[in-house]
């Protein structure tokens, strides 16, 4: 059967199980769009190609499958860069398909020609130029395998226009992936495994550091068994949130720069850290010289290059988290750990009294109140997609996730503007779920054009803007470390409710706590998307905070507390 390259692409995507493509047309990808129109694939027209990549990313994170984004050559492709990097840093399986000028024009500075594979080389897991129709099916199949195997990541396939237009025989069976043969490494020696078992069973103050890898490998069930078999307390990374229920008494909460104080103290006092599918990012370790000095470390990780990168470990078990945990589980012995768990409870008690929830109602609306009320009203069951900044940290602290893939957030790259488009992707992945965007007034203004995508696609998403009139996290750093010189952080915004109306979306503005829950409820009950502009306390800060490069146990705590430590320039 002879098909054009463009038709082969659409046919291959369909056979790979793709149903949604987030994209934006243009000259060099037009043959593909013509074929798309004849296919059963649902194309979502975005308003900016960055949005397409975030949507594909949100789709991938909410579903566990591969998200697909599409753009034309030149500026279409370069607009994808931020979204590709976001997916790379958070190991998200995204396949980006870009049009390219005809192969005979490559390298000639033709109209809208750009070397996008050169540009994206360091921010993709792999990328490739296809200039023959015959190679399209196999290359796309390989892209899907690469994107979603091992440690997942984005793959970009750049297809020249002549390859899209040329015709050739399409044979699915003959186009099976032919990836280079890789060396099969022995993941770890039996001695490493035995050492890990010994460390596990002899630890007095063990603590698990649970990361995104647990979700990626689908290890949630065995992880749960592992935790309870060993009676091991668990600290979460930001991207690990959801892989283990927040309601479990052994789940202590988030670690790191804005982690719970008792979690960071527990890390510093532990005698064994069991890191599972996490990479000791600087935002979770603070100063490496003072990090967990008392603890031996076991690292369960699929990516060899992460071993001993930041923190030297005593036993490295390289492999898929689920497989490694399944092997460790039968060897793990139960311990009571009354002293250790009791000690952590005491640390927690100290923090509870400083909690913002305990603050008297002084008429001010605090972001944490909004998040906490949202959690209660949605019974913790919503998919929450956050942007980056203060609201993101408050979400992680006050929205308690019990289910995997219900928090979608840009961790590694920290991409402002991620939330709204990523939520659109998440909604297509999970149409039955209650999807909430939690976003700051700064980040929302970066990608708010995608409101039009919501309207055009007639999807239901609720948007909570945590509006404090500042680029809040940067303002917080200026407050702590730059003597309150608020340079370029006060932020003028449009009337978001009116803006929503202009797009054809219901908009609300909330200024007092009493209105928070009723408005959230009414938004949930509405069949259409609702945007709520929460006007919160302007100069509130996220506590506790480990200053960048500071020791993990030396946190800046919420003021009006006898234990407040003074902030210093890092």
């Amino acid at each position, binding site marked *: 059967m002879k098909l054009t390259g463009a038709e082969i692409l659409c046919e291959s995507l369909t056979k790979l199980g793709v149903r949604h493509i987030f994209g934006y047309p243009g000259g060099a990808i037009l043959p593909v769009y013509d074929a798309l129109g004849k296919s059963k694939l649902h194309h979502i027209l975005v308003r900016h190609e960055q949005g397409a990549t975030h949507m594909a990313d949100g789709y991938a994170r909410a579903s566990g499958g591969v998200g697909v984004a599409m753009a034309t050559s030149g500026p279409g492709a370069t607009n994808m860069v931020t979204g590709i990097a976001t997916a790379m840093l958070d190991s998200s399986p995204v396949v980006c398909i870009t049009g390219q000028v005809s192969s005979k024009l490559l390298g000639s500075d033709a109209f809208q020609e750009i070397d996008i594979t050169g540009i994206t*080389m360091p921010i993709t897991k*792999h990328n490739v130029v296809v200039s023959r129709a015959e190679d399209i099916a196999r290359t796309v199949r390989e892209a899907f395998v*690469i994107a979603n195997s091992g440690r997942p990541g984005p793959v970009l396939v750049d297809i020249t226009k002549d390859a899209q237009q040329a015709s050739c025989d399409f044979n699915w069976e003959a186009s099976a992936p032919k990836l280079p*043969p*890789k*060396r099969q490494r022995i993941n770890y020696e039996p001695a490493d495994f035995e050492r890990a078992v010994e460390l596990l069973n002899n630890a007095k103050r063990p603590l698990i550091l649970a990361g995104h890898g647990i979700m990626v490998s689908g290890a949630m069930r065995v992880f749960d068994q592992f935790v309870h078999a060993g009676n091991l307390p668990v600290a979460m990374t930001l991207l690990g949130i959801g892989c283990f229920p927040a309601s479990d008494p052994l789940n202590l909460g988030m670690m790191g720069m804005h982690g719970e104080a008792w979690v960071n103290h527990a890390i510093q006092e532990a005698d064994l850290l069991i890191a599972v599918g996490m990479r000791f990012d600087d935002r979770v370790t603070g100063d490496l010289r003072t990090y967990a000095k008392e603890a031996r470390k076991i690292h369960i990780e699929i990516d060899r290059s992460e071993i001993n*990168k930041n923190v030297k470990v005593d036993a490295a078990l390289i492999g898929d988290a689920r497989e490694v945990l399944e092997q460790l589980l039968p060897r793990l012995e139960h311990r009571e750990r009354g002293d250790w768990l009791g000690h952590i409870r005491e640390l927690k008690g100290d923090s509870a009294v400083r909690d913002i929830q305990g603050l008297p109602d002084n008429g001010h609306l605090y972001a944490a109140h909004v998040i906490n009320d949202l959690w209660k009203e949605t019974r913790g069951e919503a998919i929450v997609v956050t942007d980056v900044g203060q609201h993101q940290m408050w979400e992680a602290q006050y929205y308690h996730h019990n289910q995997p893939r219900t928090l979608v957030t840009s961790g590694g790259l920290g991409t402002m503007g991620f939330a709204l488009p990523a939520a659109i992707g998440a909604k297509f992945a999970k149409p039955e779920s209650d999807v909430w965007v939690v976003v700051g007034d700064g980040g929302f203004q970066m990608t708010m054009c995608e409101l039009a995508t919501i309207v055009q696609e007639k999807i239901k998403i609720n948007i909570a803007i945590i509006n404090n009139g500042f680029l809040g996290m940067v303002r917080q750093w200026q407050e702590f470390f730059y003597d309150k010189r608020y340079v370029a952080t006060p932020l003028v915004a449009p009337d978001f409710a009116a803006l929503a109306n202009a797009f054809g979306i219901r908009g609300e503005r909330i200024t007092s706590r009493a209105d928070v829950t009723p408005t959230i409820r009414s938004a949930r009950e509405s069949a259409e998307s609702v945007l709520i502009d929460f006007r919160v306390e302007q100069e509130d800060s996220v506590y506790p905070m480990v200053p960048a490069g500071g020791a993990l146990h030396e946190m800046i705590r919420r003021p009006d507390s006898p234990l407040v430590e003074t902030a210093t320039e890092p």
Partner: protein
Amino acid sequence: MQTLVAYVENKPGVLNRVASLARRLAINIDSLTVGPTENEEIARMTIVAHTDEKGAHRLEASLEKLVDVLLAENISERSLLERDLALIKVSADQQSRPHLMELIKVFRARVIDVAPESLILEVSGTVDKIDGLLEVLRPFGVLEMARTGRIAMTRGSDLLRPPGAPPNGAETEPAVKAS
């Protein structure tokens, strides 16, 4: 200085990926040689890098993450042979020529071109040997030099073969394809 060997797909852009990775890790490459192996689909690289053992581990592990890299291994601590090849064009007039010829003999270099005012020498061996020859040639006037950079191989039964290659090297089957 650390020495790594990598087997890579013999196709366009792979060298760029490898070099780009070293750049990202802020590792300075002292020399990088690449050439086809007995299997023309696979090329072998010898990378000599200014870094320590930890940096070499990161480079090795990161290289193996590249789809086009079949295998990467730090062989610095193993028993290995290293060779470098240089072509050196040196000034040689009637007076200096006999003295030059003596030095060439000592270093087991070869004269591969003779011109009225210069000679081209070919020398292979360890980096030290070539550096040594260069040092003694300087007073005569080194006009031009081209060096290949190091290639390295582990000794004896310590084999470093591309994945999928037949163990005894007798067959010429293409490498096993992963699915």
